[in-house]
Each structure stands twice: as C-alpha cells, then as structure tokens.
C-alpha cells in the first residue's frame, strides 16, 4: 500500500498490573490507518479495543501502562513521549470521543465552555474568538441554535445532541485522527444513523482519519473501509470491509456474523457462540479462542497461531485459515 498513513501502530502492548497479576489487555497489536479512511476495530467487551484506543492517546490510568511497541502519527513516534509533549497532541492532533455522552461531559459546566476549553488549550486566541470557533463548529456538526446550546448544561440536552457536542469538542482543532469508542452504542437507532452520517461526512470533507471502535457489525458495514477484529487482546483477523463480510475466515468472526439477526432470513433459533471470554489473567497456552471454537484441534490448544496473509491484505490468526482458500 502506497497510501499515506496517518497512524501506524506496531506490536503495541499494554498491561494492567494488578494485585492478582499482569493483565495483558493489549497483546501485540499492529494496525495502520490510512489518511482520510475510516478503520474499524470490532470485538466484544473486554477484548482490548478500548485499551488500544486509550493507549494510542495516552490516557491509560494506573495500574494500566503501555509496555511496548511503536505508535507513529504521521511519522512522528508517540510512544515514549513525555506527558507534557503528549498533552499537546491530545485534543489537537488526535481526539477521542466516548460511549456515554451523558457521563462524558462535566455535569456542572456549560457545554459551550467545555468545548471552548478544547480550543483554548491548543491555540492562543482570546476567549471571545474561542467562543466564535465553538459556535462555528456547533453549526458544522449540525447543532441548531448554537448560541442557546452554548449556555446549556449537559442534562438539558438530548443524547444525540450531547454526542454532537462531544464530536464538536473533538473536531474543533481539526485533528488528523479521531478515535471514536462506541460512539453510538448509547443512542437510539435513528439518532445513531444521523451521528454515523455526520462522522462519515466530516471525514470525507476534512480528510480526517477515524478509528471506529464498536461491537456492532452493522455500524462497521455502514462506515468502515477496513476492519480489525480483536479477541482477548490480539488481532485475530483483518481485511477491508467487503472482503471481511464476504469471506470471514476466523471462526470467531464467522460466529459473530452468524449471530447477527437478519430480517431476510427465517431462522428458528438465534445463533450464539458458546462459552465465555477467557480470563485475561489465565490465558490458555494456545489460541485464546480454542475453548469456544467448533474447529479446535490439539494444535490450536497448545500452539499460539500467528497472523498470516491469505491475500490482498486479508490477515488471519488461525491454523485452519492456512488450509482454507
């Protein structure tokens, strides 16, 4: 791929050091985000996708810590930067929006001021100029009556509006990369559609790249150009969206696809993936998915599989994938 990469991550590892041992939340993750593209990370709760995001932007809280790997933003190495240097990048070059817009906004501060804070932290402009910037970005993200909304408190706004405020806050400094951690999970379906469209438009119009984290395959299909599937801290499959949905190779991804409820099929029983996510403190020796995999062999249980290329950028971490295709 000769595309310019906004973000390039190689062998990222982050762990939590708890009293019970080291939890390897992000266990050798490598991914690439091309300029202007939307990349999705999909997986269930606890697979490490949020931790990956927080590792990139550097807000992992004690006892979590980035342990190793390289994170390059437009060529600049971020891993190992001092907190002071990282603070300049946060909010300005990389922004992040979170899942729950209600609790992600300070309940006792006006939303306008909170967005204003984002721009005042990174540009030396006056308070009045900053306010104008806020009003402008409010309009861009589709917040009606910006002056009125500026003086509102979070509890006075609807869920969709709050998430637009979060997006405004993230966009106001024109970041190169936006990380969206389950941005629509807490919203109604109709609002979700609006927000997703907004994010897509912003990306196309400004050339901003997006990392979209979700467990919802529909959202992935709607928005993403390329998808990474994570399980138990590792990437188990990656491909461009169409290829992934047409030919999912990893049994986990196949299971996810099969469990999606579809209106165009008459199904007697809902499909599920049996078993539960393994405890990250006690990972099995072989493949982390082996205890739930319908095709698991002895090799799977004892040897950890590696990511290998099955053609045109489609990578799978599975022994079975070697024989298939």
């Amino acid at each position, binding site marked *: 791929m000769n595309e310019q990469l906004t973000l390039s991550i190689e062998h990222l590892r982050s762990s939590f050091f708890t009293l019970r041992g080291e939890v390897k939340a992000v266990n050798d993750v490598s991914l690439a985000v091309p300029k202007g593209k939307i990349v999705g990370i999909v997986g269930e709760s606890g697979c490490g996708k949020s931790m990956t995001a927080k590792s990139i932007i550097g807000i992992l809280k004690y006892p979590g810590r980035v342990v190793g790997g390289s994170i390059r933003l437009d060529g600049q190495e971020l891993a190992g930067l001092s907190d002071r240097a990282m603070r300049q990048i946060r*909010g*300005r070059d990389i922004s992040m929006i979170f899942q729950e817009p209600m*609790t992600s*906004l*300070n309940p*006792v501060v006006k939303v306008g001021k909170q967005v204003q*804070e984002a721009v005042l932290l990174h540009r030396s402009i006056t308070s009045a100029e900053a306010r104008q910037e806020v009003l402008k970005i409010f309009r861009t993200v589709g917040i009606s009556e910006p002056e009125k909304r500026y003086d509102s*408190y979070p*509890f006075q706004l609807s869920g969709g509006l709050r998430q637009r405020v979060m997006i405004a*806050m993230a966009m106001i400094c024109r970041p190169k990369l936006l990380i969206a951690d389950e941005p629509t999970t807490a919203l109604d379906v109709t609002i979700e559609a609006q927000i997703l469209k907004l994010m897509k438009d912003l990306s196309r119009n400004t050339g901003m790249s997006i990392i979209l984290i979700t467990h919802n395959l529909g959202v992935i299909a709607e928005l993403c150009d390329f998808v990474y599937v994570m399980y138990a801290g590792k990437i188990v499959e990656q491909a461009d969206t169409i290829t992934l949905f047409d030919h999912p190779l990893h049994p986990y991804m196949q299971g996810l696809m099969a469990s999606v409820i579809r209106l165009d099929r008459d199904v007697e029983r809902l499909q599920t993936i049996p078993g539960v996510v393994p405890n990250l403190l006690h990972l099995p020796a072989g493949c982390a998915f082996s205890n739930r995999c319908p095709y698991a062999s002895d090799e799977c249980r004892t040897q950890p599989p590696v990511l290998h290329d099955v053609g045109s950028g489609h990578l799978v971490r599975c022994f079975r994938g070697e024989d298939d295709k």
Partner: protein
Amino acid sequence: MFRNIAKRVLQTIPILLGVALLIFLMLRIIPGNVATTLMGEHVNQESVKRLTAELGLDQPVYVQFLKYIFGAARGDFGTSYYLNRSVKNLLTIAFPYTVKLALAAAMVAWTIGITAGIFAAVRKNGILDHLFMGFSLLGISMPVFMVAMILQYFLAFRLQALPLEGAVGFRSYIIPAIALGWNSAGSIARMTRSSLLETLQEDYIDTAAAKGRGRVGIITAHALRNALLPVVTMMALQISSLLSGAVITETIFSIPGIGRLAVQAISNRDIPLLQGTVLFTTVIVIAGNLLADCLYAVLDPRIREAK
C-alpha cells in the same frame, strides 16, 4: 431560583416555631414551682404567689407561649432569673465571642481539611495520604476537651507560646479555634478525599484528559467542582456540631460566649436565659443550613435549573 429560596425560608418558619415550642414545653414540665426554687423552701406562700404572678407563671401554658413568641418577634426574650438582666442583652454581649471562635474554628478546619483531603487523594496510598488520613482519624476520635487540654499543656504551659485561657486579643483564640476545629477538619478531610477519588473515576475526567488537560488542570477545572459538593453539605451539618463543641471550648478556655452562658443557665436553673440561648443557637443552625442550601444551588446547576 429566588422563588426556591423564598420557599425554603418559609419552610423554616414552622421549624423555628417547633423548636421554640419544644424548648418551652420541656422547660415547663419540671416538677416543682419555679418561684419556690428561686426563693428557697422556707418562704411564706404569699411571697411565692406574688413572685409567680410577677413572672407570669400562673397563666395557662399556651398564653405564656404566645406571649413569649410575640415578645421574641420584637426582640424581647425575657429577663434572666439569676442575673436580672434582659436575656437579649446577655445574648448580644456573648454572641460576638462565640462567632469569633466558631468562625475561626470553621476557617481553620475547612481550609486545612479540604487541602489535606485533596493532597491525600492525589497522592493516594503515598506517605502524604497515610499521614493526612492518620491525622484526620485522630481528629474524629479525640474528644474536644482532650485536644484542648493537650494543646493547653504543650503550647500554653510548656512552650508558653500562647495564653492559657481568656478571650483578649487574637492570640487567645488560636488554641480554642484549633481545639474546636480539630474534629471538623478530620471529617472534612476524609470526605474530601473519598469524594475526590470517586470523582476522578468519572468519564468526564477521561474526556478532559483526552482534550489535553494536565493533571492539575483536571483537578482544578473539573474534578473539584463536582467533588466538593458533598463536602459543602457536610460543612453545613457541621455548624451544629461546632456550636456544640463551642459549649465545651468556651468553658475550658473561659471565653464568655453563648455556650458558656448556656451552661451557666443550667447550673442556675435560669429558664429564660436557657430558652434564649438554645433558641438563639438553633436559629443560627437553621440559618446556616439555609445558606448552605443556597450555596449548593449556586454550585450545582442541576439543582438550580430543575423545577
């Protein structure tokens, strides 16, 4: 918002009346004739009757109560049996001492308490945390008189640095203020620490960090505004306990405030004075709570804007 305040003020009136009624009734159910107590056992009945009539004690209770209330509204709280001066006069003289003491104690307690709590939370599990929390434990467990006597012993006696007792000049308030505020400081420190720790777990702290805020900025601009809300509530509740503590502190340090006046009233069975002091302190507590409610509404827009 002003409607809210007015509503709350109106709500306190029945409470005030309730308080006055309660004190009144309590002091009237004592067996024995007040006049007899005052004059001694061996006085003839004529004199007793006359004194009773003079003091207005021969009238039905509700009449006495109404007279008292109307008098109080005009500022007349009766005359002290023992000291033979108007209660209002006595209260006016004693009041400034108590105010100075209580305010000093509150200032000391709250500023030290909040600061200690913040540092303890920020340096969680560090030496500072353990140190401050250790002190706050001492704060909430040591009785007021214990703190007072320890301070007296070391600062006034051993080091001769501060006066042992009395209320003359700024320096004589230092030990009493510390003694009185010690307990409050402990509670406030613990509450601030736990509240701040809890607040720092909230999602909007992540948002602030993602915006590029530094540690200090996060705490001052975001965390404290939320963490201090329950602390303000606690501060309001402490007005009552500060006044209770003032009773002891004034006694130990011979400060002629309202607390000491109350103790004197009890020793002398001086009903009007006792009534006056208790009513007065209760009014302060109620006013303080009202103030705290207003403060809370100022700080928390959710309370302010909600209808």
